[in-house]
């Protein structure tokens, strides 16, 4: 039985357990209909031209885990920002782990989507926000149909959150192949300020397929920093669907560090619905072997006087493949827009491939939009210069790779996180860069 059939038939059983009066019952039903009709996206679709899901969906996944797995903190400590204090919402095989988590209802909500979906007092929140900005495409609908757990974060107006919030999804390998569909809902109130780190981490080499959806609402003057750490094991694949809705005077920044995993697809969507909004999308991708990462970004400029900045850097070794598909839409009324998009790639080995496709759709006439895309090798003169000072080839390349990625790294605002990513990048590049860079 194909994964699609398995999912569709198991929906019936899944639906039986759900409350017919639940506010999201209809949403789920519609979503499974959409998925049943469209199925998994294929390379025939323009947006999926360079990413095939075949290697993922041909496995027989468990689509619900028993979730009775416990993990000792020491074993996973390295995946947390352990040197500073943080809120933590942790899931093991898709099931909430209260032991590893540090949630809060004290002046803000950092808790579970499952309780929000089931409790009467959150009904208004669900009606106002849930599934409002998530796309209705097949892969997001699949998540919507099955979603029941994830992080719920609600920052009240004027609240500056005192420490970062970590959302971590561990998979233990308890099942030979596990499919998970976490769903996060994040509301950043007016003038509120928050930093969030999200990570999907497999703890075994068993197959994992995660189809994650995150909806983020930034109310007026809100500030959001969101960091995605994608450094998963070789049999872990991820489709990350993130939707960000910005009101007036908001500032939302997403950094995506794609350093591992088998197949990773990032659907990152911004919609600017109020004037003077600023969106930043940055990414560093460092791949090897046959790893594949596809960054599919969309910035929709609906309101005037806004900015967006995209800076994606990619380093591809061995037979790894990368895709950058960046779309910017400037609607007719959205005058005085500054939209910048930069995508630079270095192919370290001859077998590595990158497909880059910038798309600008501009309907307003007073805008500043630029995009640049390069695919190349190392700068021969810069390499020569470093080597002429005695620096060996490998280290000189590492310095250049590091420097190349640094425009993305330098805007990471949590020093401890920056240091961790720094070390990760050094490790990926395969040298000990050593000191203060």
């Amino acid at each position, binding site marked *: 039985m194909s994964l699609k059939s398995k999912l569709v038939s198991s929906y019936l059983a899944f639906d039986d357990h759900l409350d017919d009066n639940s506010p999201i019952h209809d949403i789920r039903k519609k979503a499974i209909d959409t998925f049943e009709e469209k199925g998994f996206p294929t390379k025939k679709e323009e947006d999926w031209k360079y990413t095939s899901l075949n290697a993922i969906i041909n496995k027989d996944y468990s689509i619900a885990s028993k979730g009775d797995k416990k993990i000792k903190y020491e074993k996973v400590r390295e995946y947390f920002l352990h040197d500073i204090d943080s809120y933590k919402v942790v899931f093991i095989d898709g099931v909430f782990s209260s032991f590893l988590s540090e949630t809060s209802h004290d002046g803000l909500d950092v808790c579970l989507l499952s309780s929000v979906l089931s409790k009467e007092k959150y009904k208004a929140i669900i009606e106002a926000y849930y599934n409002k900005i998530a796309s209705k495409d097949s892969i997001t609908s699949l998540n919507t149909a099955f979603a029941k757990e994830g992080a719920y974060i609600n920052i009240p107006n004027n609240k500056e959150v005192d420490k970062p919030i970590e959302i971590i999804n561990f998979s233990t390998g308890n099942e030979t192949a596990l499919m998970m569909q976490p769903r996060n809902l994040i509301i950043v109130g007016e003038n509120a300020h928050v930093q969030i780190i999200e990570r999907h981490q497999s703890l075994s080499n068993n197959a994992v397929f995660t189809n994650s959806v995150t909806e983020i609402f930034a109310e007026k003057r809100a500030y959001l920093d969101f960091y995605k750490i994608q450094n998963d094991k070789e049999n872990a694949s991820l489709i990350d669907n993130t939707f960000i809705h910005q009101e007036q005077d908001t500032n939302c920044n997403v950094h995506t560090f794609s350093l591992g995993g088998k197949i990773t697809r990032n659907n990152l969507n911004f919609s600017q619905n109020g004037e003077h909004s600023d969106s930043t999308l940055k990414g560093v991708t460092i791949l090897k072997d046959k790893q594949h990462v596809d960054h599919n970004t969309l910035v929709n400029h609906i309101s005037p006087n806004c900015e967006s900045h995209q800076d994606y850097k990619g380093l591809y070794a061995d037979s790894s493949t990368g895709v950058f598909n960046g779309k910017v839409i400037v609607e007719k009324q959205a005058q005085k827009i500054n939209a910048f998009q930069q995508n630079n790639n270095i192919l370290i080995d001859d077998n590595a491939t990158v497909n880059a496709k910038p798309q600008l759709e501009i309907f307003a006439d007073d805008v500043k939009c630029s995009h640049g895309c390069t695919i190349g090798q190392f700068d021969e003169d810069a390499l020569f*210069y470093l080597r*002429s*000072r005695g620096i060996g080839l490998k280290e000189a390349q590492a310095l250049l790779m*590091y420097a190349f990625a640094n425009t993305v790294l330098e805007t990471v605002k949590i020093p401890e996180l920056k240091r961790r990513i720094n070390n990760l990048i050094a490790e990926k590049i395969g040298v000990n860069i*050593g*000191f203060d860079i």
Partner: protein
Amino acid sequence: MIINNAETILSVQELNASIDDTQILNGFDITVKAGEIHAIMGPNGSGKSTLAYSIAGHPKYSVTGGSVTLDGVDVLEMSVDERAKAGLFLAMQYPVEVPGVSVSNFLRTAATALRGEAPKVRTWVGEVKEAMSKLSIDPAFSERSVNEGFSGGEKKRHEILQMELLKPKIAILDETDSGLDIDALRIVANGVNKLKSKDNAVLVITHYQRLLDYIVPDFVHVLIDGKIVKSGTKELAYELEEKGYDWIKEELV
């Protein structure tokens, strides 16, 4: 300074080199001994930069014949970084910008590579600060990206700073005077003169005599069409300054 029975540091024999299949150097010869300063002067297109880059091993230049040895060891067999480790230093005419690599990181990485171990942080900071102050370089420079946004003078002083810290056996200065005002020229020349000892040597490549007022050569060679056509002492440089290169070309005919 000319020392009797000094060891030969750099020996270039019958060097032929080309770029993009165009031969530029045609049987170039020079022998530089410990303690000596040699100047190579020549008109545009005579092969000055090709000489510098070929010895340093830039991949765009291919050596098609001849030999280059440093302390008697074949340089042409070495990779670019091995040449630096053997004691060769090229101060470039157009130092390359390396965005994202800070000067401090670059200097320390290079020093670590050349010395075989990372310099101790405590002494290293002092060493760099002292070298910077001698060259009138603002210490805030350390945090900037290598050569990025540097003025012409800053780039050249940065080259000499590296030379000071890396202490090469043979330094080749490729048109180090170009783009420098008289004050910067003096600072750069002082840096070179202070480094000079009886154990090392300097090869100054220049178009003009001006730099040689500050870095006084023991020998001056005239490079035309890829080979040395005339050698002499510093007086030859004055003569070239006064009369240009044409009279030498005429002499050749």
